C-alpha cells in the first residue's frame, strides 16, 4: 500500500477559548483512536446515540475504527446494515426524528453519493420546513494520498457546504477530531463529518480524556505568523504546517488557520488573520474548481479586500478524479511542496 508520507506532528499552542471544555487528563491517541474514543464516550453517556453502517459490528469497520464496539454496546446500537447508503442515511434520519442520535458510517465517504438525496433533501431541509432537528452524524473516511482509487479517495465536503441546512466538519488533528465529533453528535442538526483516511494512523497527539468538546464553527490558529496566512482544513493543514516550517527557515513567518468546520464557517477568525498578515493562501485537498477554497477566497476578497497586499492564491487538487498510480496521484493532489512554491510566489509579489 502506497502511503501518505506525513511527519508525526506534535502539536503545541492550541487556542482554547472559554467555550471549549476539556478534561485535564491526556492520552496519546491517533486520529482514528480519537474518533473511536469520541464515539465510545458518547455511546456510554447517552443511550440515544447509536451507530449504523456496513461491517461496523462484527468486523469493526473497514478501518477497524469501531472494533469491539458491538461487544460493549450490543448489535442493536452498532447496527450492521445492508449495502444501502440511502437506507442507512434515511433510516438514521427517521430515527433522529424519533428521539435518537444516530451516527451513520459511510464505509468510504465516496459512497455518500448513493445517500446524497437523503442528506441534501430530507435531512438538510427538515429544520427549515418542519422546525424539527435531525441530530444525525454521517461520518466516514475521505481523501486520497494512500493509493486508493478514484472511488475511494474523493473529497466531497464542498457539495454539502453548498446544500444548505447541513453542517460540515473536517478535522485535521486527533484532539479536534474527538472534540468535534462529540460536538457533532450533540448538535441537533445533520452533520457530515469528514475523516481523512490518510490521517487515521499517521498522526498521534495528546487527546483529553472523557468529555471534550470543540464547538462547531470555530477556526483554530494553529500557528501564528505575520507575513502570510494559510487558510486550510483537513489533510491540507498538515502539508501547510510542513510548508510553514520550511518557510520559517526562509525567514517567512506563516500563520496557519485550520478552519475545522466549513459550515458553520468562522469568517471572523479567517478575516482577522488575513487582515493581520495581508497575504493569503488557501489550501485544501479537494479539487480546485468550485471547492470550498473559492468560498474562502470570496469572503476575504469581499471583507478584507483593503488589507490585501497580494493576490489570494489557492493550492488544491487538480480538477480530476483522484488517480490510482502513485505518480499520478502525486501530480493531482496538493502537497507541502506545492504549497511552498505558491507561498514563495505570494511572498515575492
Amino acid at each position, binding site marked *: 500500500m502506497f502511503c501518505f508520507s506525513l511527519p508525526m506532528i506534535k502539536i503545541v499552542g492550541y487556542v482554547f477559548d472559554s467555550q471549549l471544555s476539556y478534561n485535564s487528563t491526556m492520552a496519546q491517541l491517533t486520529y482514528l483512536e480519537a474518533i473511536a474514543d469520541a464515539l465510545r464516550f458518547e455511546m456510554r453517556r447517552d443511550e440515544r446515540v447509536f451507530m449504523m453502517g456496513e461491517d461496523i459490528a462484527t468486523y469493526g469497520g473497514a478501518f477497524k475504527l469501531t472494533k469491539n464496539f458491538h461487544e460493549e454496546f450490543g448489535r442493536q446500537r452498532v447496527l450492521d446494515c445492508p449495502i444501502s447508503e440511502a437506507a442507512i442515511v*434515511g433510516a438514521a434520519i*427517521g430515527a433522529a*426524528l424519533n428521539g435518537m442520535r444516530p451516527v451513520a458510517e459511510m464505509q468510504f465517504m465516496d459512497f455518500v453519493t448513493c445517500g446524497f438525496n437523503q442528506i441534501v*433533501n*430530507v435531512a438538510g431541509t427538515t429544520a427549515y420546513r418542519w422546525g*424539527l432537528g435531525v441530530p444525525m452524524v454521517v461520518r466516514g473516511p475521505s481523501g486520497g494520498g494512500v493509493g486508493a482509487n478514484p472511488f475511494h479517495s474523493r473529497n466531497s465536503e464542498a457539495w454539502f457546504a453548498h446544500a444548505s441546512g447541513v*453542517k460540515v466538519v473536517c478535522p485535521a488533528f486527533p484532539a479536534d477530531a474527538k472534540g468535534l465529533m462529540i460536538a457533532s453528535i450533540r448538535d441537533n*442538526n445533520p452533520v457530515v463529518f469528514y475523516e481523512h483516511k490518510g490521517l487515521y494512523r499517521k498522526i498521534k497527539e495528546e487527546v483529553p480524556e472523557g468529555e471534550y468538546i470543540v464547538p462547531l464553527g470555530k477556526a483554530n490558529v494553529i500557528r501564528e505568523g505575520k507575513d502570510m496566512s494559510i487558510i486550510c482544513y483537513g489533510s491540507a493543514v498538515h502539508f501547510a504546517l510542513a510548508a510553514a516550517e520550511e518557510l520559517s527557515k526562509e525567514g517567512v513567518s506563516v500563520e496557519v488557520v485550520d478552519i475545522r468546520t466549513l459550515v458553520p464557517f468562522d469568517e471572523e477568525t479567517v478575516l482577522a488573520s488575513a487582515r493581520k498578515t495581508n497575504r493569503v493562501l488557501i489550501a485544501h485537498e479537494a479539487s480546485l474548481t468550485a471547492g470550498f477554497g473559492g468560498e474562502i477566497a470570496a469572503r476575504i476578497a469581499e471583507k478584507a479586500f483593503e488589507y490585501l497586499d497580494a493576490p489570494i492564491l489557492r493550492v488544491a487538487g487538480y480538477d480530476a478524479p483522484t488517480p490510482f498510480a502513485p505518480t499520478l496521484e502525486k501530480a493531482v493532489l496538493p502537497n507541502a511542496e506545492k504549497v511552498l512554491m505558491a507561498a514563495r510566489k505570494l511572498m515575492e509579489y
Partner: protein
Amino acid sequence: MKLKKSDKIPPIKPSKRLTNDQRISMFRFMLQAREFDLAMQRLNRQGRAFGGVYSQTGNEASSVGSAFALGEKDVLFPMHRNIGGHFVFGQDLNTLMLAFLAREGSLMRGTDGTGHYADVNKRIYGNISHLGAMIPVAAGFVLASKMRGENVVSMTYIGDGGSQTGEFHEGMNFASVQKLPFILIIENNQYAYSSPNSVEFACKHLSDRALGYGCHGETIDGTDVEIVYDACWKAAERARRGEGPSIIETVTMRMRGHAEHDDFSYVPREELEYWQKRDPIDRYQNFLLEKKILTMDDITAMRTTLIEEIRAAIDYAVELPFPPAEEGLKGVFVD
C-alpha cells in the same frame, strides 16, 4: 391494469372488526377528503390556490382505510394523495389550509406547502417531493421505537410510479432485514403523471416485490375501504407481533389529472368510466345505506356540514397574508 368488460362491481366486503360507529367515522373522513378535493379544485380554478393541487378523488378508501387501521401510538407519513389520512389522524382544517396556502400561521412558516408539514403531536410526518425518500425514513422512525422497546407502527405510501425508485428498494429491504413494524401502501392508481403502469413496471403486481424482500405482500381492491382497513389492520398486528413489514398494494384510479393543470387526455374514456362505477365513496355509501347504517338524510347533512367547515377554513386561510419575508431567513438550522 386490464379492464374486464363484464366485471361486476363486487359488494363491499364487510370487516368483522368494525363497529358501525367506526364505519360512519371512516365514511365521514372519505367524504371530507372528497369535499376537500373539490374545494381545492374550485380554489385552483379561481386562481386562489397556491402551488400544485393533487387530486385525491379515487383514493379516499385507500388513504382513509389504511390510516384508520393504525393505533393511537402509530405514526403516519402521508404522501400527496393522502389527505384522508391527515383527517383520520385528527388534523384540523385550518391547520391544513394554512399549510396548503402557505399562509401566516402555517406549521411550515411558508417554507413549504401542501401536506409537506409535520405535526409531531398528531404523529403526522409529511413528505418531501422526491418520491421514495420517505420509505427509509419511516422505517428508521420505528427502528428507534423498537430500540426503546416501544411497540409503534409506521406507515407510508408510494405510487405505482414511485415504486421504481432506488429508495423504495433500499428502504423495504432494510425494513425487512430489521423486521421493522412498518407498512408500505403502494397506491396503484394506474398512472404516474401521464405514465400508465406499463411504462413503470413489468411485473404482475407490485406487491410481488414482497417476495424479494421476505416480507408480507398482497394486492387488494383499493376502492373498498373495509378491505383496505382489514388488510392494514392485519399488517399492523403482524408488525406489532414482530413479524416485520408489509407491502399492501391498493388498486384504484386517479380520477383526475396528476395535478389540476393536467387535462389527463391520455386516459381513455372507458377506463375512467370503468372506475367511475367503482367510486370508493359511492360504493361505501351504497353499503351504508343498504345496511341502514346511515340514511340519505344523514349523508346529506354530513356533507353539508363538511362543506361548510371546509369553506370556513378556506375563508379563514385565504384572507391571511403570506408569512413575513424574514421567516425565509430563519430556521435553516435548529438550536
